């Protein structure tokens, strides 16, 4: 082998070791889809805008995985708990007739206390099932969603856009039109529709970027704080943490509460971009997409950081955004993109769970 080939091969090896097989495969697939989309003549600018918006609107839900993993409860499959709190905040904010930025802010402020209470209860439960948190969390998520389906039916809400025309309860999807639809997406959007700049339909959702960046920064600060480091220690080795005078259960609960609160905020960011609050069974599988996102980013059940969240969300959501029009163009099978999404997200979760090594 020549010198050059040698150095290339070591560079490849170190890249391979750092990035890991799944990220390389998905990255290559992502680039491949991009090329195909250009070849078949899909507007690249608007496609990229979609990728950015889809990634950012999902990013806080993915970010909610980080404190769970770091505190040692593993992948928080119980994310629907946080999502339900967020939805409840949103619904109450509308019921109290807040609109615009105020509506969004109030939704978050109302959701957070719910999320803290639910997070404490959920953390208490997870502290009692150490070792099988992820399985328990999955079913806690499922049952909470089902239970809350009854809750949505019974809530005494009267706002005309939410209530059924007859009887009690709220509708399955609630439009945010006139409330906080696109409140972040449209804040300082650049370039705006009336500016005649041809970026091929490319737009920058400045407000969304700022808000998500702020949340990422908050998580970064938490991770570097004394409590964040204690949480990480507890997650990395509970016995070590105990010997270092840390209360393992407290920090696990702290991580769970953080994860739930971020889940609540995450769903509101998602909803303002999506334009609807989706109630009833919609939150059931949202946890899985978030889990897949953080895992694609390179996290595992023991370690996760902010960069995993950013990389993973862009790769995973970007893949799904681009796969849809490409698949529609190539094959007119309507469900192909959905099939791709399920194969990729469940496949990546499966891969990550096979990488779980026993505690030593």
């Amino acid at each position, binding site marked *: 082998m020549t010198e050059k080939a040698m150095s290339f091969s070591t560079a490849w090896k170190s890249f391979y070791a750092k990035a890991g097989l799944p990220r390389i495969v998905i990255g290559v697939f992502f680039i491949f889809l991009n090329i195909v989309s250009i070849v078949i003549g899909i507007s690249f600018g608007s496609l990229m805008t979609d990728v950015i918006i889809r990634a950012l609107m999902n990013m806080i839900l993915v970010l909610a995985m980080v404190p769970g993993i770091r505190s040692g409860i593993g992948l928080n499959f119980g994310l629907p708990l946080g999502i339900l709190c967020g939805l409840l905040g949103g619904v109450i904010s509308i019921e109290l007739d807040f609109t615009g930025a105020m509506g969004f802010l109030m939704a978050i402020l109302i959701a957070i206390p719910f999320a803290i209470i639910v997070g404490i209860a959920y953390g208490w439960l997870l502290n009692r099932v150490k070792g099988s948190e992820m399985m328990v969390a999955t079913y806690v998520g499922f049952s909470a969603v089902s239970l809350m389906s009854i809750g949505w039916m019974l809530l005494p809400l009267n706002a005309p856009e939410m209530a059924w025309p007859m009887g009690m309860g709220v509708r399955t999807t609630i439009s945010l039109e006139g409330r906080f639809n696109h409140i972040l997406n449209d804040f300082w959007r650049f370039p705006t529709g009336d500016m005649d700049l041809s970026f091929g339909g490319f737009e920058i959702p400045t407000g969304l970027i700022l808000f998500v960046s702020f949340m990422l920064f908050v998580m970064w600060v938490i991770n*570097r704080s004394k409590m964040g*480091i204690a949480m990480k*220690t507890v997650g990395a080795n509970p*016995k*070590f943490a*105990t*010997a*270092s*005078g*840390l209360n393992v259960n407290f920090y696990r609960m702290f991580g769970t509460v953080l994860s739930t609160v971020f889940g609540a905020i995450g769903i509101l960011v998602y909803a303002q971009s999506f334009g609807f609050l989706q109630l009833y069974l919609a939150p059931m599988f949202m946890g899985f997409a978030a889990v897949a996102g953080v895992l694609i980013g390179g996290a595992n059940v023991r370690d996760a950081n902010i960069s995993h969240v950013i990389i993973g969300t862009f790769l995973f959501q970007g893949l799904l955004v681009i796969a849809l029009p490409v698949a529609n163009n190539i094959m007119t099978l309507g469900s192909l993109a959905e099939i791709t999404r399920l194969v990729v997200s469940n496949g990546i979760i499966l891969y990550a769970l096979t990488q779980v090594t026993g505690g030593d």
Partner: protein
Amino acid sequence: METANFVLQMKGIGKEYYGTRVLENININLAPGEIHAVLGENGAGKSTLMNILFGMSVIHSTGGFEGEVLINGESANIKSPVEAMEAGIGMVHQEFMLIPEYTITENIKLNREITKPNIFSRLISNKLETLDRIEMNKDAKKALKTLDLNIEEWIKIAGLPVGYMQFVEIAREIDKSNLKVLVFDEPTAVLTESEASNLLDAMRTISSKGIAILFITHRLDEVMEVADNMTVLRDGKLVGVRKKEETSIDELAEMMVGRKINKVEKGTNTIDESVYKLELKNFSVDMPGEKIKGMDLKVRKGEIIGIGGLAGQGKIGVANGVAGLYPSKGEVLIDGTPLPLNNPKESINRRIAFVSEDRRAVGLLLDIGIDMNIAVTAMQNKGGFLKHYGIFSQQDTKAIKEHAEKMRKELDIRCTGVDQPTRRLSGGNQQKVCIARALTLEPEILFVSEPTRGIDVGAKKLVLDTLVKLNQEKGMTIVMTSSELGELRSVCDRIAIINEGKLEGILSPDDSDKDYGLMMAGNYSKKANSGGEVE
């Protein structure tokens, strides 16, 4: 010597694991009906010898062994435990190998069931034959009767007292019709005194039926009571073979411990004779496998005190109890004031640091860098390595790195950089990281447990030298727990020996091997108090 007179002979047995010699030229001869004790400290090679006898795969996968095993004078090539069983060698395990939900009969007859044909077995396969429970119960009864055990054979194992479980194991072995040699591996370790004496009676009964017994133990009084001959091993070598009539407990103790001390060059430390830095009063620790049951100990300020004893006797429990890691009772005084128990944070605040015997499970964050490993405990308990911004605090990355670099130089931690995850370090360097973390707490009392376990010779010396240095230069009081007596005797000022969860006595490093042997075996306090001042 006529070979035919021996049921089992092990000739010139030797074994090397990856270049480390663990056994060398061991000879054991066993006549029918003889009770032969194999004595030795932990790590003397008893288990390896038994693994060879039973053809365990750990022996054959690491290159086999030297020497020859003869059964009834014929060379036996035992390659697996099943072949050992077929050759007539049985084993009573230290940890019971019984199925709790099965009855005594079912356990005794497991995989050797007596069966009778039925219609299905005739048509299809003899694996479908019916169990002949009447015959099985008869056999089980007979085996239990041999042991003078008054218990019904249809009772389930679950819920039986520990002592009875041991007897069921024995009954299973003696029920095997071809049994020639029965090995007892530390059989009395889990038994009460009366159960143990029953067991010794049973051993005599079995041997009177012509079955030879290999009795592995470290309890000298039991050996003297029941064994005909004894072989003493030390560091994988045969120290001697004695007949019961020709020896004494004292001699055996001395043979077991032997002289193996390399005195570490040490200057003088200043021990304040007037004050006790640490006092344990009626201190109990509920640590599984290493229980402490009410011990008293006084540690002077500025001394290095060693805690020794055999595995399972409780020496490991002392430090874990004081550090607050396992439930403990009693009283711990530091500088005369009581320490709240079961509270690791309080122990750290009272300036106690603990270097755990279980480096990888308790001592390290394996996937996190050396720097954070060293800093984290001090950060969480003393607020070090933090920058404060109003109510927020952030890690002081620079200070953490600088401190780690300083420790790396002081303790000679070999690594690619201070951010290297500790998982990739060698055992010795991992141990240095653990010590660095403890020192970062600036302790007044340092507990180190098994500081040299699993590390190479060079690193061992460095770790021990570091402890001595800390003691002399900073006046740190050090409590060092170790299974290696030689190591304790080389660095400690006094050595406390723990037996059965209690303080057996305190010795000076220069005391005789005999005293050490007697204390470790628990025969010291039973003898007349010969000057072993306990304080």
